[in-house]
């Protein structure tokens, strides 16, 4: 696109010129004094506008005394503009300016929710600082981000070193900040390009926790290396598991995003919607090194959309050529479920002249569920479904200038409960040109998906000390205080049962048996009620070898996700005459089985217990769902994942399921009694049942010979009631 001088300047002022256009503008300015005069006139309007709105800011924040402090203590365009314009306070600014020191400040405060012991500016110089309470995030150069939580006392030594004499601090250090050192009274922690936390307590004890990567810990002249998920108390030698929730967290970019998003030669493009994360798939397209007058925006390749299909109702009359990629977020569940992760998608598009009525679009959706079922979820994108948690898109009519690429962006805060994102990039064209008309003039290059987690403070933790007794008795908890159900992250440990007799509403996470090889037992007694909403997971059996038990004799309500047996743990949820009301929520059994098939998860309903849940997934390993005596209503029942064996056992009682799905692993559905009833949505025949699409799947019973099938209705939905005929 050839732009005139004025348009070039205007675009420049909105920061929209690419490299080539920048060169063009520079050339015009170099050549002609008139062009420079025009440039000066337009930039003067720009600087006046910037000044005008900056003054607005001052006026808006003026009543807050601390921001006046800050405005004064640092010279900003704003304070200079206001004060110089009014010609007052000249001496006042000069008296608070750092005199005669051109030394660069060490750290920039990027987020400040802290109460400091003295006034501070937007930058911190070398020196000692104290935070009384709250969280501050500092940036030191491009490579180091720090979250510091008060009460904290620290000294900034230089850009590579901070001394902490009290408080909790967490660091995200990228390659360029490698070697950053935290000095504590008991030793030094040297970063090797990583994320880690350091705490110095009032009694002088120190701990170092590694969340990702490695650190070197130097004490008494000896150096010890700690890696991923390890922690150490200084002065001791045996590491334990690091605890990210015990530390504040600086904002950081998650190590997830799009693969092959620069569309360089040699990358593979799948056909059809992908079923695995990290690969592109969609309508036919190809990577080209250039096409006609269009050159890649960067690198040696770009994507050319080729095949098209007719698209759905909101774009009626158009054909589209689409591309998808799945981005798995399950390993970031903690940050995602805390509502802290923001996703930003962008891509560049271009087209050949003559491809009229063309639009480009980027679109992104957040889903919970199984990435392999993406196409099923995606095809229901115009319905309200419990799988889709967020969506956003944007589109544009690209210009016909082959020299310019147009950028499209979209994004959202990733909702709690999201398992994966689906990114969709596409071009459309009016179908009046015929769906067979060549669809080859549309191009895509340089897509990116950036996921950032916002800074957060540490989450207070309350731990059950392991003696049997009442939840509300303070002597059962660490620190001798009953946990604050709205604020605290709660861990139940030990062989003594924690009993809930009254009503408790939890907002943060609750973990029963968290540490390796630990035990934990929580009992909701008859008449008791536990409600879990808000952020944070509920997990029964967390780490390797942990054995967690949740017994429900009263009422248990959950809204988001519950994991039964998360990481090679052994766990049981026993609905013993009580009720578990999980609404549209999700229960996942044996979620992470990838370290060997020994996660053993059981969900048992007995003594007339009841369960209602939107999704119940028996995902990996040994997952058993058994109704000994009681009832369950399940929206989607997923039986089996990639490995291990999933089992559903039906005794006396009724199981109602709207959708039954099967994984690739082994599974069994066992009718134990003639009184067993399975209600399946839709009309079923014996042949259909015997032919259910599970790979190694079988319906069976000790003496099953046949089924009784009856059709009926329940709340307007057609169900088939299935009862076994047991042999003679």
């Amino acid at each position, binding site marked *: 696109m050839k732009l005139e001088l*004025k*348009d070039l300047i*205007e675009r*420049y*002022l*909105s*920061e*929209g*010129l*690419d*490299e080539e256009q*920048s060169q063009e503008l*520079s050339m015009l*300015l*170099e050549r002609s*004094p008139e062009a*420079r*005069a025009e*440039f*000066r006139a*337009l*930039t*003067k*309007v*720009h*600087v*006046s*506008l*910037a*000044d*005008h*709105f900056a003054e*607005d800011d001052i006026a808006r924040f003026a009543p807050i005394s601390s921001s006046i402090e800050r405005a004064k203590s*640092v*010279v*900003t*365009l704003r304070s*200079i*503009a206001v*004060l*110089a*314009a009014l010609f007052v306070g*000249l001496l006042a*600014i*000069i008296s608070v*300016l*750092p*005199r*005669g*020191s*051109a030394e660069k400040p060490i750290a920039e405060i990027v987020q400040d929710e802290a109460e400091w012991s003295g006034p501070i500016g937007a930058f911190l110089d070398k020196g000692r600082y104290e935070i009384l309470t709250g969280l501050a995030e500092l940036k030191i150069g491009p490579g180091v981000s720090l979250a510091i939580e008060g009460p904290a006392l620290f000294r900034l030594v230089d850009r590579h070193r901070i001394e902490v004499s009290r408080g909790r601090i967490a660091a995200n250090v990228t390659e360029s900040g490698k070697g950053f050192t935290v000095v504590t009274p008991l030793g030094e922690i040297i970063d090797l390009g990583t994320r880690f936390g350091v705490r110095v307590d009032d009694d002088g004890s120190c701990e170092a926790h590694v969340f990702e990567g490695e650190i070197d810990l130097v004490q008494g002249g000896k150096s010890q290396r700690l890696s991923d998920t390890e922690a150490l108390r200084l002065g001791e030698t045996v590491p334990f598991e690091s605890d990210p929730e015990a530390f504040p967290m600086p904002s950081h970019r998650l190590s997830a995003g799009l693969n092959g998003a620069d569309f360089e030669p040699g990358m593979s493009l799948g056909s059809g919607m992908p079923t695995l994360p990290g690969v592109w798939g969609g309508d036919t397209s190809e990577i080209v090194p250039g096409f006609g007058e269009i050159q890649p925006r960067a690198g040696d390749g770009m994507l050319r959309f080729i095949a098209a299909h007719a698209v759905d109702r909101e774009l009626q009359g158009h054909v589209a050529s689409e591309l998808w990629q799945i981005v798995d977020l399950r390993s970031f569940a903690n940050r995602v479920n805390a509502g802290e992760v923001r996703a930003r998608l962008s891509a560049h598009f271009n087209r050949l002249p003559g491809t009229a009525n063309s639009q480009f679009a980027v679109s992104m959706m957040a889903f919970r569920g199984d990435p392999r079922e993406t196409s099923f979820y995606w095809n229901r994108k115009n319905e309200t479904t419990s799988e889709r948690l967020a969506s956003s898109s*944007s589109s*544009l*009519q690209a*210009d016909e200038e082959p020299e310019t690429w*147009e*950028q*499209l*962006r*979209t994004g959202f805060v990733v909702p709690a409960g999201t398992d994966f994102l689906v990114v969709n990039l596409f071009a459309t064209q009016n179908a009046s040109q015929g769906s067979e008309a060549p669809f080859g003039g549309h191009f895509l290059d340089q897509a990116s998906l950036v996921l950032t987690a916002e800074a957060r403070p540490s989450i207070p933790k309350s731990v059950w000390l392991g003696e049997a007794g009442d939840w509300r008795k303070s002597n059962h908890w660490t620190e001798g205080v009953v946990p604050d159900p709205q604020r605290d992250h709660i861990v139940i440990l030990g062989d003594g049962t924690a009993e809930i007799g009254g009503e408790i509403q939890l907002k943060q996470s609750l973990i029963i048996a968290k540490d390796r090889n630990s035990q934990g037992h929580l009992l909701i007694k008859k008449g008791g009620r536990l409600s879990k909403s808000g952020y944070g997971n509920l997990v029964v059996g967390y780490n390797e070898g942990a054995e967690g038990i949740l017994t429900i004799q009263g009422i248990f309500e959950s809204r988001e996700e519950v994991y039964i047996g998360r990481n090679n743990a052994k766990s049981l949820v026993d609905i013993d005459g009580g009720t578990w009301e999980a609404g549209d929520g999700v229960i996942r059994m044996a979620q992470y089985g990838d370290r060997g098939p020994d996660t053993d998860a059981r969900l048992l309903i007995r003594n007339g217990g009841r369960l209602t849940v939107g999704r119940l997934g028996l995902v990996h390993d040994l997952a058993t769902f058994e109704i000994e005596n009681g009832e369950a209503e399940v929206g989607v029942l997923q039986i089996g994942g990639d490995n291990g064996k999933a089992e559903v056992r039906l005794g006396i009682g009724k199981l109602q399921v709207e959708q039954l799905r099967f994984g690739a692993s082994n599974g069994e559905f066992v009718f134990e009694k003639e009184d067993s009833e399975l209600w399946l949505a839709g009309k079923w025949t014996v042949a259909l049942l015997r032919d259910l699409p599970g790979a190694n799947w079988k319906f069976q019973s000790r003496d099953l010979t046949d089924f009784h099938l009856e059709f009926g209705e329940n709340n307007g939905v057609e169900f088939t009631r299935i009862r076994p005929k047991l042999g003679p």
Partner: protein
Amino acid sequence: MSDSSSSGDQTTHVQQLFVKHVALLKHFVISLLPNPSEAEDIVQEVFLVITAKAHDFEPGTNFKAWLLTIARFKVLEHLRREKRTANRLSDTAIDLLAADMEDADSGPDPATLRALSKCLNKLAPKPKLMVELQYREGLKPAAIAEKLEWEANAVYVALSRARSGLRKCIERQMNHPLVQPE
């Protein structure tokens, strides 16, 4: 420090000159770094440098030239550090603009800002919204487009029209003020 009083005087003098020329400095810096907060950082840095180097300045010589030299250096250093190639003027263009700026008027003075504030009130609602989204909210055109569900190009055009309108209006106000400044 034994020479603190004379050193303090020289520093104060240079700082007073800085405040006198700060509008010009801002205009120069923002014309090379159109993002206002980025420009703000450089202006801050320039202030720290002139304070530190106050003694290098010979009273009676051209302060504007000295100021613009330091600013030009700081901007180039910043652009190189950022390895910026998009939305960046060439070094030659920057040199020429610095030279021009020495002879130019003094950047947006209070009268210009008053005129601007009147002209903003005369702007039609749509262009006014664009201007507020860019300058008050700090949104770039692509983000504005997304927010309003417009095409990005339409936003560029609207912003460009808004600024041209403001420019003409400010010039009219300055030459034939309808209302005398109070």
